[in-house]
């Protein structure tokens, strides 16, 4: 995701001194967020993810993922104290009308509990679930300097496909990581992005009112715009889908 480094919570320490590492015995219990939309875990998830980020996402961002793909969200809980130790948030949908793409949007582990393989386990759970749901590929972005995060994914088989200059709001650069789960993906047709990559007869990139120019998001916005314009020209759109 653009905006902020979503994997900030498995980065190095934040500005204040991080809490000391927990060294005791730990019984970690992994569960899926599930289909209960406003689960009681939602506030804890928000808190954990936004803790180390320079600016948080609104509740809508969390709902966007958890309402639609609650089964792709996994939580690591301290079974003894029922505290949230780590969380992963994902989605799964066709990418530009082509392959079914899983997308890891957020991954966070509490700093006291890092280095125990919790994040890796969460990623594995998400990947397994996506495979179960017939995903063709899995994608994510992470900061180029986020070595722990890169190691987790690259040790599972992800490769870097693009470098994204100043991708995050704080100006840091990201890698796009990709994992194919099935053969033949490069040959699956996709729609081109609505806003082409900026080349052409001297027209600058269209300003997106302050948002980052992420392909994914640009496509969705443009699709949304197109839908609204249809409405303006008198076509009655039944949003209930009946």
């Amino acid at each position: 995701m653009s905006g902020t480094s979503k994997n900030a919570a498995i980065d190095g320490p934040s500005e204040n001194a991080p809490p000391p590492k927990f060294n005791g015995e730990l019984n970690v219990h992994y569960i899926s967020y599930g289909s209960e939309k406003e689960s009681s875990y939602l506030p804890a998830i928000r808190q954990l993810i936004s803790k180390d980020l320079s600016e948080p996402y609104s509740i809508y961002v969390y709902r966007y993922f958890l309402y639609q793909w609650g089964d792709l969200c996994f939580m690591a809980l301290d079974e003894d104290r029922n505290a949230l130790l780590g969380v992963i948030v994902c989605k799964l949908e066709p990418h530009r009308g082509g392959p079914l793409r899983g997308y890891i949007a957020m991954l966070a582990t509490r700093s006291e509990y890092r280095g125990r393989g919790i994040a890796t386990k969460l990623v594995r759970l998400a990947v397994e679930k996506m495979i179960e749901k017939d995903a063709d590929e899995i994608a994510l972005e992470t900061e180029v300097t986020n070595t722990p995060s890169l190691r987790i994914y690259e040790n599972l088989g992800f490769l870097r496909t693009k470098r994204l200059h100043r991708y995050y709001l704080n100006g840091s650069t990201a890698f796009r990581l990709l994992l194919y789960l099935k053969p033949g993906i490069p040959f699956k047709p996709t729609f081109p992005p609505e806003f082409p990559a900026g080349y052409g007869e001297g027209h600058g990139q269209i300003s997106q009112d302050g948002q980052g120019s992420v392909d994914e998001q640009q496509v969705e916005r443009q699709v949304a715009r197109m839908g609204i314009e249809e409405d303006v020209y008198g076509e009655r759109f039944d949003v209930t889908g009946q």
Partner: protein
Amino acid sequence: MPEDDLADEASHLTIDGDNPNGDDIGFAAKRLAHEARKTLSSGGGSRGIRDVTQEFAAAAKLLQPGQLVKDEYFTLFEAVGALEIMDPKMDSGYVPPGDTLEPDFDVCKGLPAEQVLWIMDELLRLTAVWHDGYPLSQTIFTSLHVDRLLSPDNRPPYHLFYGDTALLVMTTEQRLVHIVLRAYCIALVKSCALVLHTIQSQNFYEEEDFVTHLFGRELLPSTGANDAVKLIDEAVKFLDGADVDKVMRTALLERLQFARTYISLLVSDSADWNTLAAMGRSAETHKLAQPILEAFSDKVQRQLATSTPPRPMIIISWDEALERWKAICADIVEADRLTCFDVCQSPHALHRAIWAFAYREPQPNTFARAYLQTILFASEQITEGMAFFDLMLTDMRDLVLAGDVLVDPHSFLVEIPSDPRHKCSRIVETFMDKAFDEYMNLYRMVCQNRCRIRRTFTQSVAIFDSLETEAMRTDAELDGITPGIVLAGEDGPGNVTLTPLTSWVKYYKLQTMAWTIQLGFETDIYLPHELSMMYWYLMVFARRERKLLEHIERFLAARQKTFVSSRDARQDDEAAASQEWLAVLHKQADFTALLSSALWQVSELLMTLCILQPAKRDYAQEQLLYDVRMKSYLGIAHDPIPTLEEYKSATQSDRSIEDTCNNINGTIADAKSCLAYMKKTTPEQGKYIGTGEQWKREIKQLETTCVAVAVQTSQLRRVADKHGKLLGAPRDQSLKGAVEVSIPPAGSRYHDWWVVPQIREKKT
């Protein structure tokens, strides 16, 4: 959006989840629609505050927890842009308890010269930060004086004071603010407008390179650059006679002169940016300035229109800001030099010049890169007498058709429809039209940030490939009108023709493919265990390019034989120049093939000996990893790339370590002799006019790289020998644990396009 449709849309909002209060919700939605209509029809509305707490709470009570009112088009994009009102991290309009909405500073009050000086320098510093890509809301707009000038309540001629309360009798300190500081601010703001115009008329990437957002403000639209200059001149006149300390006066005049020069340079096409750079003297008087922090405030952001919260800001010092200014000036001056008339006569020289510009250290900023693009692309031509069409035609001529009537400019002027030259010219023109965009991208996209260069070129590969289909068709059509030279086939039986347009497209396709790999090394796209395969593919692409050049050279030689010696010296000269240049390109392709071969062998050896190993990777499958990595090249229809199997069968893991090391050394020696050849190449031969310094520097870096490869190879040989493994097949050996390898990151390599693994014996 028409008002009724908005209200209509509102009434169609859908509800997700259970719906026990269906009627209530339907009612709430209808009421919302009604309210929307009322608001929109009340003629625009006025600014004010209305407490909607009760209404909002009542409406919210109608929903159960877990019920979501979600518009179909509320996308992830919208969600990320949403903010929670009263959350200080998101709501930049939030006023903490005890704080005031607006900063408490009177911009109309007079200030001593020392403080005015500080404000001017601070604005200079902030403008440098803005140039680096930080938003106006966090840079220039934080000046309260600028904020007042740009306020939506202000009117031309944009004074700091409002209405008729003009201070007719001003003290010196008031004049310093209302005449000197005001003129300076206006000039800087108009300069921003000019910079923005340059950037936005060319290619750049919003957010990545620059933030163009104006936050709902206009940049003094009724005031022109000339008006701003006049104001500066008036301010200078005032200062000359003002009751101000002599040293202070000089310092203030320097700042005014800077602003005047800056805006004049932005307005004029042919001016010397060195004059601005010379103003670095301003640094000395800066220490006389007296800080007045209250004159700047982040609170301005509360009233600016934005959908993102403020971003983390860099702090640069005054000295660093001056360095930025100097760098901008130096870049602009260099951009002018690199695109001088002589360079622009040769497409290839121009190409080299743009790459040289892009690889300046530090990399030129967005404005400088937009400036270069403006020089080349803003008008209908690259330079005087060289239209885009001419550039492309010259490119074809230089590369594949030197001395050929097909791309002789005179052929395009033939008007007799039955003349084969006329017919062929129209066909060539049609093809050039199709190739135009992608061809110009070869110049334009090098002016983008490094990541985007690679990203664009990975997409270009497929486009060139489909252009190749078009080229083949066009070549056949041309051959039907004016049959070209036929020669015996290079590989097998049968004859071949030049297929000039196909060859031309193929060349750029292969070049672009090679660049995507080279840039991949530079941007750290490849993991250590991928080096071997990527070097192998680079070698393959370079070898193909070399073969293509040989094909072109053969036909050039054959064409030269057909020249009637008495006729046109121009033809001979053109062909001779092309021949020399093709020889250089040939050597360069040779070099790339050789160095990649050497590095492929090194990397592969490290893998075979288990020194360089990928992690276990539970979800990886060999073919799928290959698909991810080679995706951009898999769709190529013409001369498809070798498959994974073909790559694997090229392995050298049977050869002993000693033999491999010997082979690597031999390859490096050959590579070095290519460099020796290039060292002796003149700018005309190599078409590197204007970039001689860069040519020499690059050869030096490549020489060092070659030496480094030899050194690392001998390292490996030494350790293998020590363990008695020099002679056996590497496949059966392992030096795991005996050797460790590190991969130098970009920025610490001899040449960022070449990764030389560092091999070290592990101390036991």
